[in-house]
């Protein structure tokens, strides 16, 4: 009721407000005359918050049924397990007993101090194996109502009719055997064919705001994953890039695929409100095809960080490292003093135990086998030597181990087919003031895994970059002092020395700080990124000769296409200008450029490994001439067509221009008089200028001819 209404009503009833003490007005109890109390809303809210009060109770089922004599023992075991996960209220553990037999009923109730602890305990111990026949089934007490309401009758799930999906490998069947790449620039994400013959790209699919941070191909190229607020999504199929699956994970930050792309790991970290605390980290592992979450991990960043503390920045990615091979069997996580290796059948730890290794700081899987290499630095001020070891999974047998002395740091590099492991060892000099580097080379596939020590010719050289030849036996090292370091090539196998590492050659004073081997080996790009402004040297390691030296000014990224035929170099938006990418042939010939403002990312679509056996591949390489004939002809046709098209395009452009010029000329003619008037009758400049131009031109040409003639006469 508005105040005015009240006043008029009061006046009608002859009430003088000033005489009324409002507080003295009392309503009879239980009757409010339709007047709502001001407090009612507040009261109502209170009621909503009031819940059953059982939110901090969990029910643990599948306990062993024990007689009275063992009751106390079981109770103690349970107390021990659950008091680790939260504070159990006083007398909060209650295990009912059958009054007739005196044995327990196989379940118990546990009341925690807070619902959060209860939730945590439920998540952590659901599925906990006390022994083989007793696997805990833990539920919140509050959930019981829901669980009890499950229908008694089992309803057979409806079988959905089989709908054949799109061919996810369609891009591999491209007639021209082209490769795809994805680029992100401005708001647009584009999937493009690299059509090197046409010297341009062909658009496959384009979408604005496709992803909220970045995109990534799966390791075999089947899927493209995009990141969103709600989670990650994968896209693929023929050329349309339809959404195949979504993975719910709020505010996902990073994703990682298992090498056989069966599983997707998503990562989210929450910055702490208190900067001294570590970030909260949540990691989920999904089955890519079904979209089911297989396991999730929660904790503070410190638990997931390797080496240094996780801190505010979050854990170092990838937290989980997948074992090599296509079957995606194992993945490992490194945390303080432990290596946790999980297997994907049950998503549990192998043998339910993690491996204890004191002070381990780095682990690395072999790319093909389930062998884990790990590095433990020196301890006790050098009393205990540093150690590099190879561990077989799942047997956890140590295959090989090497102790190293006065080590400051180690880096492990696996060769792509898992044949060799190179360990770059930085050692202190005697004075401990500086370090020098050497390599320990493990031959994994040979008996007893022999280890070889390699030192550079000049021991004091700093090592700037190291890279194995993919599938090959060679490696390249950039060493020496900036700004002109040397590049050396070594091989693990020569015809003379079967088992000795030999140097192939050294290139002196190169402007390079990064190495990019072709995925097929043999060719390498020595790239000078960042400070070197994008110097590129295309080098043939078989012949030890430079094929081309070029520059993509300010290039930030270099990436080979999966077949090793083309190279993309890109300037991303870290620089302000000349953003975009350039495609080169494997031997350093510039094919085409593509400028795009605000260029963020470029990634080639990976190809799955070839089904051809090495013998077959060799045979093809031998008879290359026979196979290549067909393609050469095609190439020729294309280039003819291209020049034809080009000519036509130019002609069209020229004709169009002529039309404009003609139109302008006629307008100019029409306006001639008007112009003359505007200039106070001064002759329109057209003829004047034309005459002038002609004259000048003629004079110019005469001059030139004169000069040349004189020279000839002399």
């Amino acid at each position, binding site marked *: 009721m508005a105040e005015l209404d009240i006043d008029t009503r009061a006046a009608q009833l002859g009430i003088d407000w000033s005489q009324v003490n409002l507080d003295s007005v009392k309503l009879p109890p239980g009757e409010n005359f339709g007047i709502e109390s001001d407090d009612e809303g507040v009261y109502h809210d209170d009621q909503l918050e009031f819940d059953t009060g059982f939110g901090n109770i969990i029910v643990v089922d599948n306990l062993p049924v024990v007689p009275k004599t063992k009751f106390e023992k079981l109770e103690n075991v349970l107390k021990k397990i659950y008091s680790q996960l939260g504070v159990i209220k006083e007398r909060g553990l209650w295990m009912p007993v059958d009054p007739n037999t005196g044995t327990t009923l196989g379940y118990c109730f546990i009341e925690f101090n807070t619902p959060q602890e209860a939730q945590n305990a439920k998540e952590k111990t659901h599925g906990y194996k006390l022994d083989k026949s007793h696997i805990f089934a833990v539920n919140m007490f509050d959930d019981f109502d829901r669980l009890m309401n499950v229908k008694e009758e089992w309803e057979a799930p409806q079988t959905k009719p089989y709908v054949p999906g799109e061919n996810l490998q369609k891009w591999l069947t491209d007639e021209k055997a082209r490769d795809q790449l994805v680029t992100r620039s401005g708001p647009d994400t584009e999937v493009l064919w690299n059509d090197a013959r046409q010297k341009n790209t062909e658009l496959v699919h384009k979408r604005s705001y496709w992803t909220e941070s970045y995109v990534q191909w799966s390791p075999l190229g089947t899927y493209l994953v995009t990141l969103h607020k709600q989670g990650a999504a994968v896209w693929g199929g023929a050329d349309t890039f339809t959404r195949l699956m979504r993975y719910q994970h709020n505010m996902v930050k990073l994703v990682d695929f298992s090498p056989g792309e069966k599983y997707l790991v998503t990562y989210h970290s929450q910055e702490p409100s208190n900067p001294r605390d570590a970030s909260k980290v949540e990691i989920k592992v999904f089955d890519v095809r079904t979209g089911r979450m297989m396991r999730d991990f929660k904790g503070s960043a410190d638990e997931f960080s390797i080496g240094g503390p996780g801190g505010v920045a979050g854990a170092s990615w990838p937290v989980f490292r997948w074992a090599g091979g296509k079957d995606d069997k194992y993945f490992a996580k490194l945390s303080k003093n432990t290596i946790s290796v999980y297997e994907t059948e049950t998503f549990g730890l192998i043998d339910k135990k993690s491996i204890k290794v004191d002070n381990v700081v780095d682990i690395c899987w072999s790319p093909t086998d389930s062998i884990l290499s790990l590095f433990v630095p020196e301890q006790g001020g050098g009393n205990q030597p540093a150690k590099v070891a190879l561990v077989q999974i799942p047997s956890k047998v140590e295959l090989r181990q090497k102790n190293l002395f006065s080590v400051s740091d180690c880096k492990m590099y696996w060769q792509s087919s898992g044949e060799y492991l190179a360990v770059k060892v930085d050692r202190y000099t005697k004075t401990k003031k500086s370090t020098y580097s050497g390599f320990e080379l493990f031959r994994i596939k040979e008996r007893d895994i022999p280890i070889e020590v390699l030192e550079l010719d000049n021991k004091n050289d700093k090592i700037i970059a190291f890279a194995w030849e993919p599938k090959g036996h060679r490696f390249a090292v950039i060493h020496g002092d900036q700004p002109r370091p040397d590049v050396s090539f070594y091989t693990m196998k020569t015809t003379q020395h079967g088992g000795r590492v030999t140097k192939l050659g050294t290139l002196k004073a190169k402007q390079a700080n990064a190495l990019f081997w072709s995925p097929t080996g043999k060719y390498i790009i020595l790239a000078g990124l960042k400070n070197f*402004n994008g110097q590129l040297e295309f080098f043939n390691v078989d012949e030890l000769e430079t094929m081309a030296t070029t520059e993509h000014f*300010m290039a930030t990224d270099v990436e080979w296409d999966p077949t090793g035929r083309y190279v993309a170099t890109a300037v991303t938006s870290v620089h302000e200008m000349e953003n975009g990418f350039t495609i080169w042939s494997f031997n350093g010939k510039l094919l085409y450029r593509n400028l795009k403002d605000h260029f963020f990312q470029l990634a080639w679509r990976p190809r799955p490994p070839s089904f051809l056996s090495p013998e077959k591949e060799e045979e093809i390489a031998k008879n290359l001439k026979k196979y290549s004939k067909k393609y050469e002809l095609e190439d020729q046709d294309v280039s003819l067509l291209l020049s034809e098209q080009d000519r036509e395009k130019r002609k069209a452009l020229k004709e169009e221009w002529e039309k404009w010029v003609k139109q*302008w000329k006629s307008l100019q003619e029409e306006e001639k008089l008007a112009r003359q008037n505007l*200039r106070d009758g001064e002759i329109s400049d057209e003829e004047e*200028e034309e005459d002038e131009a002609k004259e000048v031109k003629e004079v110019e040409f005469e001059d030139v001819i004169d000069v040349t003639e004189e020279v000839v006469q002399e």
Partner: protein
Amino acid sequence: MRPILMKGHERPLTFLRYNRDGDMLFSCAKDHTPTLWYADNGERHGTFRGHNGAVWCCDVSRDSLTLITGSADQTAKLWDVKTGQQLFSFKFGSPARSVDFSLGDKLAVITTDPFMERTSAIHVKRIAEDPADQVSESVLVLESPNGRKRINRAVWGPLNQTIVSGGEDAVLRIWDAETGKLLKESDAEVGHKNTITSLTKAADDSHFITGSLDKTAKLWDMRTLTLLKTYVSGVPVNAVSMSPLLDHVVLGGGQDASAVTTTDHRAGKFEAKFYDKILQEEIGGVKGHFGPINALAFNPDGKSFSSGGEDGYVRLHHFDSDYFNIRI
């Protein structure tokens, strides 16, 4: 041929203008004195003293006797080219950004910047035959619909019937020069995406070229405002010019002046880039400046051009005979 380096300005160049005969070159810079040079050998002929701020733009009459300059000191001045004496000074409440004489030199269009409460505006002034009769009243004042954004350049259309303007709001506008009505706006879809920095028209007023910070230059029909060509540069474009002789356009620019000292000297791309006007393909570049290029002008005979840079130099380039035989 070796370029002629003309050192006379102490601050970055802002504008270059040849007279009709192509024997004189006028240059404007952020120092306060526009300078006149001999266009063939680059010798300095004289300066025009009187401005008290950066000089943004100039234009010279068809008979090469009168010069008009627009300056940040909130004036536009008329000068006697022969003597270097100031003839008249138009006063505005805000800096004068661009000036352009009409066909017949009886009118001039002057644009002013947004300043304090004032919005950017286009003023049309009548230029008296005898400087003694000169009045400062505007014949027409046009207010941009987007007045807080600066208009960088306004020029006369064919037969002085229209005025074409472009500026920070990236839109090109054609105005009726009689009534002041807005006739056309450039299509936002195909038009520039960022500040239009420069606008140069063809000798016959049939078409014009615009340069923009969106790293492109565009060629437009002056009567219909139809987009004809786009030249993609990769760096912000500060200055544009068209060859009167061949179908070439030249673009100048480079990274933002404030970023120059932080990167490699090659990073700036301070080249004058030549493009084929019809095919829109890059032909070549002329390097030399060590700062962004702010001004470009072709000699009316098409055989030389000059560029003015943030570095304070004017570089005068006479083309080699090879240039006239370029085929692509």
